[in-house]
């Protein structure tokens, strides 16, 4: 199914605007190579008008972070009645909110590191500060402090001792009004990308991110060429790779994702897989993991873009049950 005209949604006001612009630039190249007519829209106040004026029959959502990846833009696309790439409103909300994701994982019995989540209100109005020592004791150090809703590792801090926790909380609360404190699991960082087509969801080869710096694969490393080494496919025993694939597919289904997604996990030193989070709209930049995984599976970037569009148009024909 070939779209007549694609509205490519990019940019927007989120903190990940630049990442989105880099993703979109690659998609624009791919669309040109595919000979698909498209119009790029830097999303802003006039989005609804821009969508209506675009005369497009499908939207490619190359947005990351707040607004673009959290269900907001998806909701508007539903209202305008334009099919779009990737997950629907509800799945986007579930992925964007790490706390919600983790609660769903727990309920389903899927592995995820121990955690506690707090809102700013809990501290300001309910005295949550008094609970911190008990939490620290239960999670042990180092503890990872994360904003509930922020991609790209912005605002994620390691607290190595109790003295580091308040500062880490302040940093995380700079990005969201809810944060989580998570047990740090020592191990290898794996990312499993998923791609759906008419035959169902399939997991692409596992990518391992090996940071140069100690401890952590930060925002900077994530997007700068040569800062983090990526191994794709990751060198894993077959059974581990297969467990990672199965786990990722379970997460994809649990959250109600559609079309594609990426599930980040840790392979702990004692060989357990633990899910950290899921990305509803993983990056498509030159250094992003989904395109690398696709390539390892023999899917070139423009084929990937084509598949994403196909799925979007297929959903129009038969609405997905979840999300």
């Amino acid at each position: 199914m070939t779209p007549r005209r694609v509205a490519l949604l990019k940019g927007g006001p989120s903190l990940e605007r630049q990442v989105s612009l880099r993703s979109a630039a690659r998609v624009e190249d791919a669309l040109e190579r595919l000979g698909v007519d498209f119009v790029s829209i830097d999303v802003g106040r006039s989005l609804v008008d821009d969508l209506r004026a675009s005369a497009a029959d499908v939207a490619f959502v190359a947005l990351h972070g707040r607004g673009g990846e959290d269900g907001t833009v998806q909701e508007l696309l539903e209202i305008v009645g334009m099919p779009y790439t990737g997950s629907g409103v509800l799945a986007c909300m579930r992925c964007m909110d790490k706390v919600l994701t983790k609660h769903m994982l727990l309920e389903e019995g899927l592995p995820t590191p121990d955690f506690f989540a707090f809102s700013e209100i809990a501290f300001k109005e309910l005295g949550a500060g008094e609970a911190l020592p008990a939490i620290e004791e239960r999670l042990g150090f180092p503890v990872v402090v994360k904003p509930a809703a922020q991609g790209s590792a912005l605002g994620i801090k390691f607290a190595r001792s109790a003295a580091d926790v308040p500062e880490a909380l302040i940093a995380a609360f700079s990005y969201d009004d809810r944060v989580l404190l998570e047990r740090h699991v020592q191990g290898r960082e794996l990312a499993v990308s998923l791609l759906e087509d008419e035959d169902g969801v399939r997991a692409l080869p596992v990518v391992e991110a090996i940071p140069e710096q100690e401890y952590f694969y930060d925002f900077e490393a994530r997007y700068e060429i040569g800062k983090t080494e990526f191994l794709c496919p990751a060198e894993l025993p077959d059974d581990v790779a297969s467990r990672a694939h199965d786990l990722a597919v379970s997460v994809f289904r649990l959250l109600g994702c559609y079309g594609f997604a990426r599930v980040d996990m840790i392979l702990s030193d004692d060989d357990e897989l633990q899910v950290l989070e899921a990305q509803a709209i993983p990056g498509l930049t030159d250094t992003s993991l989904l395109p690398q995984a696709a390539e390892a599976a023999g899917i070139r970037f423009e084929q990937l873009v084509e598949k994403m569009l196909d799925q979007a148009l297929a959903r129009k024909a038969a609405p997905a049950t979840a999300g």
Partner: protein
Amino acid sequence: MVPLDEGPTHLKDRHQTTSHEIERYAGLFAKRTRHMRSSAMRDLMEITARPDVISLAGGLPDTSSFPPETFAAITDKIARRSCASALQYGPTEGFTQTKECIVEVMAAEGMRADIDDIVVTTGGQQAIDLVTKTLIDPGDVVICEAPTYPGAVPTFCSYEADVIQIEMDSEGMRVDLLEETLARLDREKRRPKFIYTVPTFQNPAGVTLSAPRRSRLVEIARERELLVLEDNPYGLLRYEGEPLPPLHALDGGEYVIYLGTFSKILSPGLRLGWVTAPGPVLSKIKLGKQAADLCSSSLTQQFVELYFEEGRWRRYVQDLCGIYRQRRDAMLDALAEFFPREAEWTQPGGGLFIWATLPDFIDTGDLLAKALREEHVAFVPGSAAYVDGRGGSSMRLNFSGADVDGIVEGVRRIGKVVNEQIALFSTFAGPERRTETDRRAPETQPAPPEDAAPLADVVELPRRGGERRAQGS
């Protein structure tokens, strides 16, 4: 020499980037690119350009104060008088007439320079680059202030310099700490190549090196046969007090390399600065410039020449000083009104910047994300002015780029997010933790009372954190 016509830059049939190619490119990168720092912060800084953001981040002069009719008259004159040569390559060291203007600007600050000692550069930034290129091998030591001009950091890093930063106080760089550091380097058999300093209305701290320290710095350079790179973009933007002699004037240009620019007194869009240096150094700089860009713009050099012919440049600088003085005062008043008691800031007698320091538990990089997200306001996080991760709780605020209303509103918004974080922090502290946070809390110095004596030319640069911040490197 003449680039081939590469056609439109948006050419879309360039072939696909694959992860294999990324690896290949990464394998081709020079080692020094590892030292070229790039960051998430840069991504955030790009958001600051959004039209709905009040930016106190840039260092932008107010070019809207330049009369368009003057601009038109000058370009018209160029068209009639020297069209062909304005469109032509020029001498590497710059046009003699432009250098005569430079001699005039330097004289206005009490310096004597010979036109043969001057090389016109593409902005002051190129002068920093050329000096570093000329003097630094990987691992060589460059000494600079802490904090230092954020734009110099990537330059030093790209030549793989070992950058050592010297603390400042209200009188600028602590020359006693400089001497200690030099002695230590001696013992370690490391010889610094040059000391980079912005002695007057420093970027980012806004402080000025005192007269005794100026003399002592020049003596040290002479005794040790060390070069000093004096970067002086703001000397003429003085809003009160008497000027101090530039290091170049004290030393006569023997050990001082002097760097000036038209960016802040005329226009940064002209991309014109200059450097004067001892003869042998200048010859190398000239060769370096030839390799870098052959020559600076002939067109804008002629613009400067004709503008100076009209003799109004001093008046224009006075006009700018009037505008910026008012904006600085508005920012200082707004800081006193909207920033919390725990914050401190400098009170510059000139230049474009105020340096504010918040309690240690606030990382201004993260705070910028909150400020952009919730309040649509931007500043430069302090860590950009350090090579070693310090400066995390400081920020640079610019008062030349926004008008008075924008400045007041911008400071109000930043004050709001800072106050929110301080209030939130206080809720984290349980009884046993409170002792911990108290120990970590800064010794606060109250903000200056509103009826304070007239602002001194040089005022206290807030320092905090005792040992950690007091170390020279």
